[in-house]
């Protein structure tokens, strides 16, 4: 492994930042900039999934839960900001006389809201992860459990219509921390915040991946029990990755709300959670850029192909899952390495160097 490789990735993040923060606002229409902002939200979630699943081996099928924490915290605040001192309109529909549910009150405060977006996922993922990892729940069990959690939360939200807006969700936000949301300049600002957050998340995982923690995480993924015999508690290692990924999901969810203007239980349930994984798988679960780019690609596919050919998009999405996982388990980001290897191969084969160290990059990718 060349020492320059991590810095190469850092350069990549730089280019990405320039494209998102500099070029995109100049060349895209408001509509597509807004859509790009939405993809960025999913990309933030995906970066977290890449960390937990790609590097940590925890197939988190319920990121919708953490996405929901951020999204609903934000949405409750924006709803209250819009309603002013009136009861939010939708609540009037079901029980006009009842007061605002108590758990809404703190979200009047912008500071509490921002704190909640960060603290809630950390606490919930901390408790959940601690319970699951200490009990050594892993593999398919972990995947199914987290998925069930997403279903349970989505159903709960759907069935508490007066408290959460139910299946209809929360929408019709007018303000974003004092800024009018329908002003294009403010929309651009929301986009820039989201894109910047995505860059920050990429930087965080970049550092994590090149750190010893990154190696330890891979070690835990591959041989959890063995790690114990090196003096580490794998539960703690996994917990860190899980909590960080939950935090990213929450941030993605929080920014989703002002950008898309609505949050519903469908965005946090099993199907949505699986779609979040689709992008990660497509891009390359264990790579740095793969998850983010994959998530953005899936989002874009949904907006564009889903428009021109909706039935076809469903088939394409289905096939995408199948083909990528089947033939390219390391995602599209492994293609360059594959091509490079294929080109080098013919010479190598004759070289009769059995002890030659195989390419590390390939194994690590």
């Amino acid at each position, binding site marked *: 492994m060349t020492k320059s490789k991590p810095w190469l990735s850092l350069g990549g993040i730089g280019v990405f930042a320039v494209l998102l923060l500099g070029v995109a606002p100049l060349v895209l229409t408001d509509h597509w900039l807004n859509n790009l902002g939405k993809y960025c939200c999913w990309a933030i979630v995906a970066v977290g999934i890449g960390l937990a699943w790609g590097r940590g081996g925890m197939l988190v099928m319920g990121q919708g839960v953490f996405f929901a924490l951020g999204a609903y915290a934000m949405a409750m605040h924006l709803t209250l900001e819009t309603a002013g001192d009136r009861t939010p309109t939708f609540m009037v529909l079901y029980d006009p006389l009842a007061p605002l549910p108590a758990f809404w009150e703190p979200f009047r405060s912008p500071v509490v809201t921002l704190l909640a977006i960060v603290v809630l996922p950390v606490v919930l993922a901390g408790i959940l992860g601690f319970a699951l990892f200490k*009990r050594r729940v892993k593999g398919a069990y972990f995947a199914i459990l987290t998925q069930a959690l997403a279903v*349970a939360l989505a159903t709960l939200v759907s069935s508490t219509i007066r408290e959460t807006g139910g299946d209809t969700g929360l929408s019709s936000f007018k303000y974003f921390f004092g800024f009018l949301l329908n002003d294009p300049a403010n929309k651009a600002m929301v986009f820039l915040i989201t894109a910047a957050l995505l860059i920050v998340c990429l930087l965080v995982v970049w550092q994590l991946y090149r750190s010893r923690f990154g190696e330890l995480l891979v070690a835990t993924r591959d041989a959890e029990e063995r790690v114990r015999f090196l003096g580490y508690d794998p539960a703690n290692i996994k917990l860190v990755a899980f909590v960080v990924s939950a935090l990213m999901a929450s941030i993605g969810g929080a920014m989703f709300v002002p950008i898309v203007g609505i949050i519903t239980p469908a965005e946090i349930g099993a199907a949505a959670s699986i779609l979040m994984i689709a992008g990660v798988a497509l891009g390359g679960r264990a790579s740095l850029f793969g998850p983010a780019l994959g998530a953005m690609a899936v989002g874009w596919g949904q907006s564009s192909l889903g428009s021109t050919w909706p*039935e076809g998009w469903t088939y394409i999405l289905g096939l995408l899952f199948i083909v990528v996982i089947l033939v390219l388990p390391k995602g599209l980001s492994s293609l360059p390495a594959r091509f490079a290897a294929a080109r080098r191969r013919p010479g190598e084969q004759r070289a009769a160097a059995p002890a030659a160290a195989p390419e590390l990059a390939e194994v690590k990718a």
Partner: protein
Amino acid sequence: MDALIPPLLNGSAQGALLLLAALGLSLTFGQMGVINMAHGEFLMVGAFTAYLVQQVITSSDLSIPVALPVAFVVAGLLGLLLEVGIIQWMYRRPLDTLLVTVGVSLILQQAALQIFPSQGVPVEKPRWLDGQVNILGYSWPLRQVFTILLAAVCVAALAAWLKYSSFGRRIRATVQNRDLAETAGIATRTVDRLTFFVGSGLAGVAGVAASLIGGTNSQMGVQYIIPAFLVVAAGGIGQLKGTIIAAWAVGVALSYFAYWTTGSFAQVLAFILVIVFLQLRPQGLFTVRTRSLV
């Protein structure tokens, strides 16, 4: 008693349907380690098969009994196709099977939506299932009794097959160590295919039962898949006995919760119950330990 007995009876029937849906999974997931998210759509295929059989044999009295084996074979063949086309390349990556089969399930749902009337199709119940029987002074719909009997028959057949045909041994050996099984002379490919055929076929049978209970449409599989997985996990991977108990417990719990709270809260509570249970017993009701490190 009015608050105790009816939910118990209803819940048992609900559990039986869940068991039928989970039974195939206990083979393909429990024994083979394949997380087949398209299992719900195989169930849907079984239900549509019942509809098609009913187009040919118009008397529902006859068509449903005929549909059961036909649905088994049709769904089984579909499963076989899935195994040969996709799953066979993925036995070393069990978690990935989950994602691949999500793709398959999306495709099957959309195909069903386009092939059949979007509103779904009617499947008529046989007339001999009209009416109720009297249990403990409460009338129990015959259809519920039928679901329970059907589940019992399937469980018995499956248990017997696994136990007496030595096939069970071969499945377990294949799953644990493919290479070793191959070199022990087990035709692992045959084992895989047959297991997948039977597991998927059972989903087809469950589909016929489901078609008598709810709607037969492109979305019907979705509601069964996650509960079924939870049931298999809670029962203990590969533990038929555990699956049965878990299915029944979840069914009854759902029913009581729905009786005491609302239909929506019942779903939430049942999920939480299973999640908490699995947290306490991560390996399910019945566990098998080995010394191996992984």
